[in-house]
């Protein structure tokens, strides 16, 4: 029998970023026994890197804002393939979730009358992002962490879940190994909430940390849940491009929210050159109006730098491809220029964007108060994920919930900046609440020792491999190159078909990758185990992207560069077939109820 330490919880939450922590707090408040498992130390999850802010229609800065405007902005940004119910719940509940953080000790920047200040961001019609300089994610995770540690939640740090356990169709728990000694843990739970974040490590140029390896996506898929919208990958337009070691590191959209402009090597503000039709009415057509918008002039329309991320990223790629890029293959992002309009602009920039100032100064020898930055697209966020019920966040597997980035629906084909932190809060809370309710109404499932033994065998198998010279780091590196080149920002059928073949070969190499040393805190071993997840989500992205023969949001096909109305009425669904092969299909997007359709119509 497999040696392991056993734990029992009503609700087990996997992942301790914003969504996982918020879910744990809610489930705990509902009075059930909660376990929280995280791959890193508590408080270090990827949420900590979120910079710009939390989108919520508080209407503190512009009283024309409301949940209806936020809802319509989110749907427009997502190209109308969002789960409209999630977009509705999100817009309605985000303000309460932000105020709740304040009641738990968060200190957002203030308006002159002492309320929570809100800033401009891409795709949001009014200033909507509650923020703390450019370290909002840190404020959020610390607030949730410091509130959560007093609620009696059992936290299992540096512990990685390797497989979900089922009792018949329903969830029964999870199998994990702890990093320090490589010992096994089996968590028996009535409900399991996945809150594992994204998949960015499948790409070479990424803003994501080592943890973002698609764990929740893959755990759910392997347990029989469906993934949806996996073709929609967000490439954030502004990552650092130089020096090479920081390539991909995020440069917050807040830079553009504070008035930063994008320039090509001719010094031209190229974002004015191409404004999509459905944003023409909302977008400034001259530089002077754009600046007035950033200064809070309510009669002005927003500058084109604040168009949605998918569009801005593609415009940057075009400039670079056509030879108008910066020396290191990006374009210029300039905030220093505001000195033309603002006295003490250097102090102003340091105050509003302290982390960006620090990051460029320290890592790139650039003083952003005086010089332009060089930026280019970086893989940042996946809109696709576990298919869940909008209200409860439960997947198709009874007792298995998902929230945050690893769940899909709210963002459609493209996420608006700031909607992720609010998504974590709104749907983290909902997942925690409904997982607790589900747990109360059910008995604990049985742990099947055969399943435990099977996962344990998979986890230990790499130690038994013959000497092949193959390493997990090499396979991961080649996978990242492949996805970047063949399933990246600009896609086509031939490249992606080639990628599927290459993924097959990488899978074979992954099965040969050797592990050195023992089970004690061994990154080589951990990376070997992560490969299965990265390869699974990569295949899901490639297959979904091949099936969608149109361009929409974060999915751009050079062989089908236009939007297609028929394709816009379906979502792509991925599931594991009975034979273990990936099955892919399309399902119709439910029709929006008339009252929501009316809101969208009214908002123009």
């Amino acid at each position: 029998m497999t040696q392991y330490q056993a734990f029992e919880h009503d609700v087990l939450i996997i992942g301790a970023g914003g969504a996982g922590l918020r879910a744990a707090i809610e489930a705990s408040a509902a009075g059930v026994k909660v376990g929280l498992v995280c791959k890193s130390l508590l408080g270090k999850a990827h949420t900590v890197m979120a910079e710009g802010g939390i989108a919520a229609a508080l209407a503190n800065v512009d009283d024309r804002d409301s949940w209806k405007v936020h809802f319509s902005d989110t749907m427009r940004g997502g190209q109308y393939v969002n789960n409209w119910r999630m977009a509705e719940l999100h817009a309605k509940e985000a303000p309460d979730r932000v105020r709740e953080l304040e009641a738990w000790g968060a200190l957002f920047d203030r308006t002159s009358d002492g309320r929570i200040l809100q800033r401009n961001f891409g795709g949001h019609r009014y200033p909507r992002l509650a923020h703390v300089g450019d370290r909002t994610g840190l404020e959020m995770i610390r607030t949730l962490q410091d509130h959560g540690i007093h609620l009696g939640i059992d936290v299992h740090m540096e512990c990685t879940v390797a497989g979900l356990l089922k009792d018949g169709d329903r969830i029964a728990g999870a199998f994990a190994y702890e990093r320090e000694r490589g010992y096994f843990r089996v968590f028996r739970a009535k409900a399991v909430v996945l809150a594992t974040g994204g998949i960015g490590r499948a790409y070479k140029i990424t803003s994501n940390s080592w943890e973002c390896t698609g764990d929740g996506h893959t755990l759910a898929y392997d347990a029989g849940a469906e993934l949806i919208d996996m073709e929609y990958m967000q490439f954030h337009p502004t990552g650092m491009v130089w020096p090479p070691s920081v390539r991909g590191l995020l440069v917050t959209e807040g830079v553009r929210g504070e008035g930063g402009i994008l320039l090509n090597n001719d010094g031209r503000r190229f974002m004015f050159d191409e404004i999509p039709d459905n944003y023409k009415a909302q977008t400034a057509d001259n530089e002077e109006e754009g600046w007035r918008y950033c200064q809070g002039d309510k009669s002005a329309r927003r500058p084109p730098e604040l168009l949605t991320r998918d569009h801005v990223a593609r415009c940057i790629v075009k400039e670079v491809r056509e030879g108008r890029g910066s020396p290191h293959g990006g374009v210029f992002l300039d905030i220093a220029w505001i000195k033309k309009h603002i006295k003490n602009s250097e102090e102003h920039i340091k105050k509003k964007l302290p982390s960006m100032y620090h990051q460029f100064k320290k890592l790139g020898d650039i003083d952003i108060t005086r010089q332009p930055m060089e930026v280019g697209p970086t893989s940042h966020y996946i809109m696709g994920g576990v298919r869940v019920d909008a209200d409860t966040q439960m997947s198709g597997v009874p007792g298995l919930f998902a929230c945050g980035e690893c769940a899909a629906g709210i963002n459609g084909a493209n996420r608006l900046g700031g909607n992720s932190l609010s998504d974590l809060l709104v749907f983290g809370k909902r997942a925690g609440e409904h997982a607790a309710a589900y747990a109360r109404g059910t008995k604990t499932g049985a742990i099947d020792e055969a399943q435990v033994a099977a996962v344990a065998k998979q986890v230990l198998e790499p130690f038994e491999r013959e000497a092949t010279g193959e390493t997990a780091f090499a396979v991961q590196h080649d996978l990242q190159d492949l996805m970047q080149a063949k399933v990246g920002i600009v896609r086509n059928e031939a490249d992606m078909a080639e990628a599927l073949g290459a993924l097959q070969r990488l899978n074979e190499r992954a099965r040969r990758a050797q592990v050195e040393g023992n089970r004690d805190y061994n990154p080589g071993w951990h990376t070997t185990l992560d490969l299965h997840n990265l390869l699974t989500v990569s295949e899901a992205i490639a297959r979904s992207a091949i099936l969608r023969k149109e361009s929409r949001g974060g999915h751009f096909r050079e062989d089908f560069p236009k939007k297609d109305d028929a394709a816009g009425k379906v979502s792509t669904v991925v599931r594991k077939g009975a034979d273990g092969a990936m099955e892919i299909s399309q399902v119709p997007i439910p029709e929006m109820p008339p009252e929501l359709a009316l809101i969208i119509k009214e908002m123009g």
Partner: protein
Amino acid sequence: MPKATFRIWRGDARGGEFRDYATEVSEGMVVLDAVHQIQAESASDLAVRWNCKAGKCGSCSAEVNGMPKLMCMTRLSDVPLDQPVTIEPIKAFPPVKDLVTDVSWNYRVKKTIKKFKPRKPDAADGTWRMAQHDIERVQEFRKCIECYLCQDVCHVLRDHHKHDEFIGPRFLVYVAALEMHPLDTEDRVDELKQAHGVGLCNITKCCTKVCPEDITITDNAIIPLKERVVDRHYDPLRWLGRKIFGGAR
């Protein structure tokens, strides 16, 4: 590409040794890049914590050439490469393996600090009003990324091992953030003197010097907390009052 040698501590709680690894150095590299490169090339089981690689999560704390640093923010261009670069784990906490240490003490300490307790909302909309200038000091403290470099360099913890009597600079900053929060109504002054051991800090300011977030730990957080303790416990009039009327205050 030029090569440089990195002298990395390999071992665990039972002991260990420095081992030399040579790897190529390219433009813009930071120490953490070198560690990752070595991991991929020749030491796949080299244990190191990291997450964001952007100075925001505080995971990759280590001692580089004897100085407490975030490895992700230490450029190789700022380190002499004509001699081996030593990289070793932080010293105030027990080693786990290689560059990873057991920092769980910090998590236990944090739990002992009384949590945030806001006053009742007093604005008409059921929330609060706070002026920006009233929260700036606390926002400075809340920049903390919990890298524990301040704990590492604090001699009360590092050299005198008073982990049972002293919460260290990180958590004094944490208490200060709570105590100076405009909405907080809790009182932590007695704990500061007793359980938290604020008196053990003798203001050498080593913590302030190593803080990667440039928090003015000693001047802005610890000294004001010491003053609060002094005001309450060492003010002669209050002392007399306590003698006559009893009670801690």
